[in-house]
């Protein structure tokens, strides 16, 4: 498949505006500015684009909700707080193809009649901050941003806002809290950000990859775009693959490519002649899958039918040497550290999950502990403001569902801690 999101990134100067324009960049913006804002929203709706941050919500519908709200001003926020462990798909866009994101944001700003956009960038990407700020300045100098975008009398300003190391700020309402200079704790919904978001104004929060798809939709049209990838989830998808494959990296493939194809065709299979033991398909908060389930298409609709989720499309591959109880323990330490502390079931429950897994890992667990893990996880699910607690609970349930024997082995002390 022809690359769009990662087009030209092998060019060492790909982040420069001249190179971007040379390969057709900012043409989609010119095209979009000839349309009425509502026509752009209809086009994005017809394209079938779903948000690439993890939830898969239809982007056009989100835009339409915000556009329909009469409050002003409106805001467009780019979620570049790529913190889901295993995920590094937005990074090449931010660092190598920043103008694609900027172009997508200007188009979305025009469609929503928003004059201000913010890119909420995770603090762990300091290089991306400099690159994005340079790119924004270039776009400003060329007249794509500022008081009079392309001489059309439209105003659009873009700023980079740096996060400071909080996973929870990838959740859209926590991101908004953080952008408002507060602790990044999620808000209860409704009201949704499209009605009461940043500074209580209608706000669209879209992931980097989502916004980077907008110029493509403008370029080839909704009809052609909707025929790419899976029928229910069209378009290209970035998969970040790590762990024990021969060629880890970010791959731009049609949405719905199977895990098997990703691992064996594109990433060269398992390294060092080892066997596949398990795969986390969509970042650490998606349930782990055994090798029997890797024929599932990686899209928002198919993955839940196979017991997991597409999440951010972050595939972590484990070979036969990995101790999965240790992986589960590390994942739970992460969730415990990142729980914002607002909802008791998450704040307390995730700590208990970690403590129980830790004693199983250390060889002092009992058979009852496995059932206790399931019971605690059930008491977290659905009882929190945001999906962090649900994610942690689902992860534990996923490990136990398909790899209960590994926990039992630790309990019977037949396996010495090793990985």
């Amino acid at each position, binding site marked *: 498949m022809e690359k769009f999101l990662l087009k030209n990134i092998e060019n060492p100067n790909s982040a420069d505006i001249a190179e971007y324009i040379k390969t057709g960049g900012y043409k989609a913006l010119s095209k979009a500015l000839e349309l009425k804002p509502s026509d752009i929203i209809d086009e994005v709706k017809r394209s079938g684009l779903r948000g690439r941050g993890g939830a898969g919500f239809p982007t056009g519908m989100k835009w339409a909700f915000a556009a329909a709200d009469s409050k002003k001003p409106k805001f467009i926020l780019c979620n570049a707080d790529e913190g889901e462990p295993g995920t*590094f798909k937005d990074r090449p866009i931010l660092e190598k193809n920043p103008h694609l994101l900027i172009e997508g944001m200007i188009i979305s700003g025009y469609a929503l009649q928003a004059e201000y956009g913010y890119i909420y960038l995770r603090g*762990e990407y*300091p290089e991306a901050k400099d690159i994005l700020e340079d790119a924004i300045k270039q776009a400003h100098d060329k007249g794509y941003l500022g008081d009079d975008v392309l001489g059309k009398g439209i105003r659009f300003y873009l700023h980079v806002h740096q*996060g*400071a190391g*909080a996973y929870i700020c990838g959740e859209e309402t926590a991101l908004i809290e953080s952008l408002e200079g507060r602790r990044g704790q999620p808000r209860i919904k409704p009201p949704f950000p499209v009605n009461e978001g940043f500074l209580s104004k209608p706000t669209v929060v879209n992931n980097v990859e989502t916004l980077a798809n907008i110029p493509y939709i403008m370029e080839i049209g909704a009809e052609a775009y909707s025929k790419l990838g899976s029928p229910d989830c069209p378009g290209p998808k970035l998969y970040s693959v*790590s762990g024990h494959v021969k060629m880890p990296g970010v791959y731009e493939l049609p949405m719905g490519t199977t895990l098997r194809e990703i691992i064996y065709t594109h990433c060269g299979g398992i390294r060092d002649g080892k066997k596949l033991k398990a795969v986390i398909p969509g970042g650490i908060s998606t349930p782990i899958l055994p090798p029997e389930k890797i024929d599932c298409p990686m899209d928002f609709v198919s993955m839940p039918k196979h017991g997991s989720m597409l999440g951010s499309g972050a595939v972590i591959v484990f070979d036969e040497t990995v101790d999965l109880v240790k992986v589960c323990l590390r994942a739970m330490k*992460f969730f415990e550290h990142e729980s914002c502390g607002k909802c008791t079931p998450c704040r307390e429950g995730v700590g208990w999950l970690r403590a129980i897994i830790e004693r199983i890992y250390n060889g002092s667990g009992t058979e009852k502990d496995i059932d206790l893990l399931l019971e605690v996880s059930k008491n977290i699910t659905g009882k929190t403001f945001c999906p962090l607690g649900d994610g942690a609970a689902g992860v534990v349930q996923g490990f136990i569902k398909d790899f209960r024997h590994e926990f039992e082995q630790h309990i019977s002390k037949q396996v010495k801690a090793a990985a």
Partner: protein
Amino acid sequence: MLNERVVIEINRIKSKYHDAQSSLLPALYVVQREYGWLSPDAVAAVGDVLNVPRTTVKGVATFYSMFRHKPMGRHLIQLCTNVACMIMGAERLVDILKTRYGLEPNSTTDDGRFSLVVMECIGACATAPAMLVDTDFYDNLTEERIADILENYK
């Protein structure tokens, strides 16, 4: 408490936002870059510059893991140990920093050269294990490579 240059920079940032409190995170970054950490006095002073209650600023500053609340060494090592880095040997690197430099997580070497913070995912999973030294990024780390890299930070 804050020097004039820092106050000017915070006020410049404030003008980019629709409300003063939105500039709080960038303002705290400015202070941390200048002084290396956020002292209680500095945190209070940021509140005064932005006209945000001091307790609010303290609550925000302590929420985010990248803000430092004690003085750091000259160079800050931020080493990822999350799952993708863990299965590629990040724990071994933590051990090496301990044996070679006497550097434990969340501590500083006696000579004040390095501080170590163990990180959650830093988005370099394909080339794990990875770390940041100050704002410089390094990946594909091995025992030898991490030693060579750190030699460049005195």
